């Protein structure tokens, strides 16, 4: 700053009475303890009986990434579920905690969308441009299947299954089958929980977005979402039928030679539906023998890749 005039001498003498000290860095007691193996932070698994521990998450998003890691060939990945959703990056689980390359304290925490890049770095980018599918047509078709699963099928999971889907987070006791709305948080809620869990609401899953409960032309301000559960269920049944027909007797979807991200996605949804509390949803998948057999086969492979994190504290 050569344009500024220098400080006059008496001021400089006064300032000299308050010298600037720079202290060394303080080791914070809150750094994460170093991890030896990659650890996946997920929502808690089902664990109905205490002696038969299940390491597969209850939540569809976490299960998708668990299946992805397992099917890409990784093994010996720890899981922990004592971290709440607020502690994750962007408020969304799953996150992957990897030991850093330099060996420094703490390691690195990756959000979900950076997991494929990390896996490529670890296992090598063997999939290439075709992402593991047989040809470009199969890859294009896989995009269609992904949008079908994440649209109609996810809507059935979210809409007809609200009490037990942690992604929704709406554990309202009066949220019965008949109640169709997801009200915005009240002032009291906003004070008590200032960082609410991010929810993937029904308005983002359904196409076209559902109209408000109070009607779009009325003077009452719009509130809630009006969803037809019968329609959602019909679309879900059609989607499952299409899935079963496309799988046929193949080992992996779309007749791929090796497991692909689409297989991980489909496995996650099928697993959640087969263990859902809603009988109608469960029955729909149960009736398709090939889907059930396929899911069982993939399940054993996915389970084998995970083990429980040793030092995490479970309340």
């Amino acid at each position, binding site marked *: 700053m050569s344009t500024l005039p220098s400080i006059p001498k008496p001021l400089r003498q006064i300032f000299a009475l308050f010298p600037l000290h720079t202290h060394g860095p303080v080791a914070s007691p809150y750094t994460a303890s170093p991890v030896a193996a990659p650890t996946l932070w997920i929502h808690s698994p089902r664990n109905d009986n205490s002696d038969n521990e299940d390491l597969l998450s209850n939540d569809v998003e976490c299960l998708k990434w668990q299946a992805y890691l397992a099917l890409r060939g990784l093994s010996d990945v720890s899981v922990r579920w004592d971290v709440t959703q607020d502690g994750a990056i962007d408020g969304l689980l799953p996150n992957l905690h990897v030991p850093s390359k330099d060996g420094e304290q703490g390691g690195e925490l990756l959000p979900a969308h950076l997991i494929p890049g990390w896996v490529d770095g670890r296992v090598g980018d063997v999939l290439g441009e075709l992402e593991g599918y047989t040809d470009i047509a199969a890859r294009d078709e896989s995009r269609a299947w992904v949008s079908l699963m994440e*649209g109609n099928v996810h809507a059935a999971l979210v809409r007809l299954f609200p009490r037990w889907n942690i992604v929704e987070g709406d554990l309202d006791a009066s949220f019965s089958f008949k109640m169709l709305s997801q009200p915005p948080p009240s002032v009291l809620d906003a004070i008590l929980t200032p960082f609410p869990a991010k929810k993937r609401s029904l308005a983002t899953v359904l196409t076209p977005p559902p109209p*408000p409960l109070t009607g779009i032309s009325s003077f009452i301000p719009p509130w809630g979402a*009006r969803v*037809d559960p019968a329609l959602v269920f019909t679309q879900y049944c059609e989607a499952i039928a299409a899935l079963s027909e496309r799988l046929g007797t193949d080992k992996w979807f779309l007749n791929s030679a090796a497991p692909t991200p689409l297989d991980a996605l489909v496995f996650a949804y099928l697993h959640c539906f087969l263990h859902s509390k809603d009988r109608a949803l469960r029955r729909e998948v149960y009736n398709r023998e090939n889907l059930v057999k396929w899911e069982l086969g993939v399940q054993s492979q996915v389970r084998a890749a995970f083990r429980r994190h040793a030092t995490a504290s479970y309340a």
Partner: protein
Amino acid sequence: MLSETIVLSIWPPSASALSVEPACVAALFHLQLAIPGRFSVAYTANPDQAPSGQLPYLTHGLHNVSSLTSIVHYVKNLPGALDVDGSFQKAQSAARIAHVQTTYGDLLTAMLYSIDTNWWNVTRPAIVSALPVPQCYYVPERLRNSYRPRLEAAEMWNISSVDQDDKENVMSAFRKDKRKNKQAETQRFKTVFARDKAAQQAREFLSIYERFLGEDRFFYSSERPTSLDIIFAAHTHILAQLPFTDNLLQSVLVHSFPTILAHARAVQSAILENAVPPIARSNPSSSIMFLIPLRISSLLRKPRVAHSVEDGRYTVARWGWISLAITGVALYFRLYRREIREAEYEEDVLVAHEEMLEEEDYEDE
């Protein structure tokens, strides 16, 4: 049942597009292909009349069917309807239809509702032209907000143009002063990046379907349009026909994918070549009725149903029962009036006696 007319209610058309929403255009195409000449089209801008609150919906006598999937199912079961799909590769078709509805739908709604200039110059006037006076001020904004969560999740909400000239076109009639463009540099970069990403997504999606279409006229090398053709062409039709002010995605379609445009034209000509469906008289119902979110208008205008013999018998029985009940009550009061009165008299006497006793006690004290 066949004698009653089938009426399809959809959003009103704009410019040369058949309707503003792709599901409505797809329903129109589907009905024209399956049951040509047996239905009529009503343009309405009041989705609250529909059973599910969304357009398109179909009325057939006393049946109401809403949403595109249900309409397709219903029409398939009508006698004499043409089976549009047959048993044509149903599984793959279901997945691709979902893909088109979600991804192509997102791209289209981003063009219609997310970009400010398009919203003010194209979409909003089209909706407002069909709405009566109180609703035309607040309903379009509500519609736009209903698409917002989905577009924000798809990261296609902030893709309005950053050019100064385009911003000036957005001025509404009430604002006379120039609004200074206070966008920070980072915000401009983000918007430009989001626009590029949206254009890239559109390009990828359309190239997938260009490859799938190949050299054929319709998908799956079929001779006539299937459901997938109808839904895909409905989206392309709207994207190509509407006169967008900011044609971010329209230019991608028009300049780089001529085969897809040709496909949409082929589907439209194949379906609408012979006849255009008649337009039903859209009832100009009063705007006050729209304010109440129930379908009271249908309750008030109950159609007169013809009385059959059995209906007459039931009516006689009903009125007979009511009259019997009333006469029974009247007889009871007539016959036992004296006893009732005596009972009341006794009660009064008892009460007076008690009061006298209380007074005596009081006086004694």
